[in-house]
């Protein structure tokens, strides 16, 4: 026992420790990006700028919690409807709240329930009708976007509640209110995943469906729950997004589908399921936004930015998402 502890201390131990191994690529990339960004564009590493990046990353961090839940549930689970759900909440949320802070509470509850219900429909179709996760959630995202377009009639008119707009303001030193809200949500969800029956069962369900079934876990219920939580988190992220941006654009949340997949993958969660943690996803979110802001600061056109993001993502996937060799 003592030997084990001795082995796992120090930097060499940290590198070998299974628990932290997945975080190391993201942390190393983050440090490289911050130093590199400051060299290319002095002032990049200023506290104010970093806090701004952190605020944007915290929206993605909340969105990718849901993606992480779905991916951990395994069976090639992926949720492509997160972005559409975020757009829906971001555009309709302020309309429901009627611009008042009391209305905001109503809107939060309504949209969390709505998100859970739509997500549960995804989960039910995937579990019981055996529709591939990718196809089901993609199709659902079209339905949700269509609903958004229909309800806003293409011209969202809104007054955003003050409390929501204040999320983008500095609260603690330079740290934005949004970052603190996101941190609270992330901590709650980590505890939910680690300490409750549901969370622990989710890992078992993800690593081996049959074993979980034989062990008496209610696999269907847990998977449906994971998809429900995914869109519930997307609803929260959508409200944060509209608070940060401060104005409404159609499809404003759509890019978060891809970003959430990317950040979760960078964070070391595998598509095969059963592994990974939320912290990995959060770190991945920060890496992505650091990269994006460096590219923006350098004045790259959006095409080149997308190209570089794609290449970086491909490199990361090449490094940590490889399948086993056929020749055993």
């Amino acid at each position: 026992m003592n030997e084990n502890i001795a082995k796992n201390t120090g930097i060499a131990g940290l590198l070998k420790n299974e628990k932290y191994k997945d975080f190391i690529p993201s942390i190393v990339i983050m440090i490289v990006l911050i130093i590199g960004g400051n060299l290319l564009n002095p002032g990049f590493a200023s506290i104010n700028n970093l806090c701004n990046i952190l605020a944007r990353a915290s929206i993605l961090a909340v969105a990718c919690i849901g993606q992480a839940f779905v991916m951990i549930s395994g069976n090639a689970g992926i949720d492509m409807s997160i972005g559409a759900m975020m757009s829906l909440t971001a555009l309709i949320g302020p309309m429901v709240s009627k611009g008042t802070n009391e209305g905001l509470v109503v809107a939060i509850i309504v949209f969390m329930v709505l998100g859970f219900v739509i997500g549960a429909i995804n989960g039910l179709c995937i579990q019981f009708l055996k529709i591939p996760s990718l196809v089901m959630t993609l199709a659902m995202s079209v339905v949700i976007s269509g609903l958004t377009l229909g309800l806003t009639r293409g011209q969202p008119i809104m007054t955003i509640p003050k409390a929501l707009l204040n999320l983008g303001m500095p609260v603690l030193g330079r740290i934005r209110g949004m970052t603190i809200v996101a941190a609270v949500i992330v901590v709650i969800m980590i505890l939910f995943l680690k300490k409750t029956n549901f969370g622990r069962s989710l890992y078992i369900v993800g690593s081996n469906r049959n074993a979980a079934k034989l062990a008496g876990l209610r696999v269907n219920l847990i998977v449906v729950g994971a998809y429900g939580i995914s869109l519930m988190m997307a609803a929260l992220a959508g409200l944060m997004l509209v608070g940060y941006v401060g104005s409404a654009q159609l499809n404003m949340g759509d890019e978060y589908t891809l970003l959430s997949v990317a950040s979760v993958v960078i964070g070391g969660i595998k598509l095969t399921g059963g592994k990974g943690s939320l912290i990995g996803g959060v770190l991945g979110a920060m890496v992505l936004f650091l990269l994006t802001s460096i590219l923006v600061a350098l004045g790259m056109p959006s095409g080149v930015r997308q190209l570089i993001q794609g290449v970086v993502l491909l490199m990361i996937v090449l490094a940590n998402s490889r399948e086993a060799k056929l020749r055993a």
Partner: protein
Amino acid sequence: MKDRIKVFIQWPAFASLVLLLLFLVINQILSPGYLNAGFITGFLAANAPSIIVTIGLSVVLISGGMDISLGGLICLINVIYVTLAMKGFGIGVCAAACVLVGVLGGLLNGICVSVFRVTPLLTTFATSYIFGGIALWIMPSPTGSVQMDLLIWYLGFGKGYLAPIIFIVIAIVLWLVVKRTKMGIWIYAVGQNSEKSYVSAVPVNRVKLFSYTFAGLLYGIGGFALTAYCGAGDPLIAQSMTMKVIAACVIGGILLNGGIGDSVGSIFGATFMGLVITTVLSSVNNSFFQSFAQGLIMLIGVVGSVVLSGFIKKFQE
């Protein structure tokens, strides 16, 4: 005779054929006499590209892979065609460039999936950024046009029927030729079970590489057809195509787990998707709810097709 009926019902594409016929009948009841010559030519011209691309994707799916980069790749093909056309190159050079770009893009996907063994979904997810990014880099906003001759030919040749049909026939023939060769059998084998295929001396990596490259070739042809139909360059032209094409394959009876399905069947799926869009456009008056209605019908199509084929399987047992 009875056996033949049984084989027909067991055909993976049977469910989609039923769905398609059902939808045609409903349409006929809702708006009698819509199936006229004008409708058919317009429909063919508009849907030939996605039908060809659907055949390409179905080959990848049958081999057990996945490709969500096709939207980005077709955008890139469109952009390159129009850029070359604006520089004064002829139709032949531009078309060859389309096919070449498609093949190279497919090859990149194939190398990452087979040689480097990255999960197909994540590989093509990353490459979709790369292809889409290059397209946006070359052409930041919609501009340009194709040669006038190409437009006239695509929309007018043989009363407007023939050009799209030629494209579709080329794609089908390519697939049928591959299906008859050893490679065709290997594609199904790898899709069913890659480990068992490996121990049976099937060159699994080569088969995967081939299926992505072949799909890339068909994306090239489809992208060319799409460019001929639209007649202009747009870096985002096909971004929404990915989802439609995947849904078309699923409706067409191709399992995402691989090994089952027929690319010809996926044509029914693609036709169904095309019909849904035209029907909704003509029958839903409130334009803001059109995309909602399209999504809903598509979702019902996917669910219906999967449930129907499951039901047929259960019925036989």
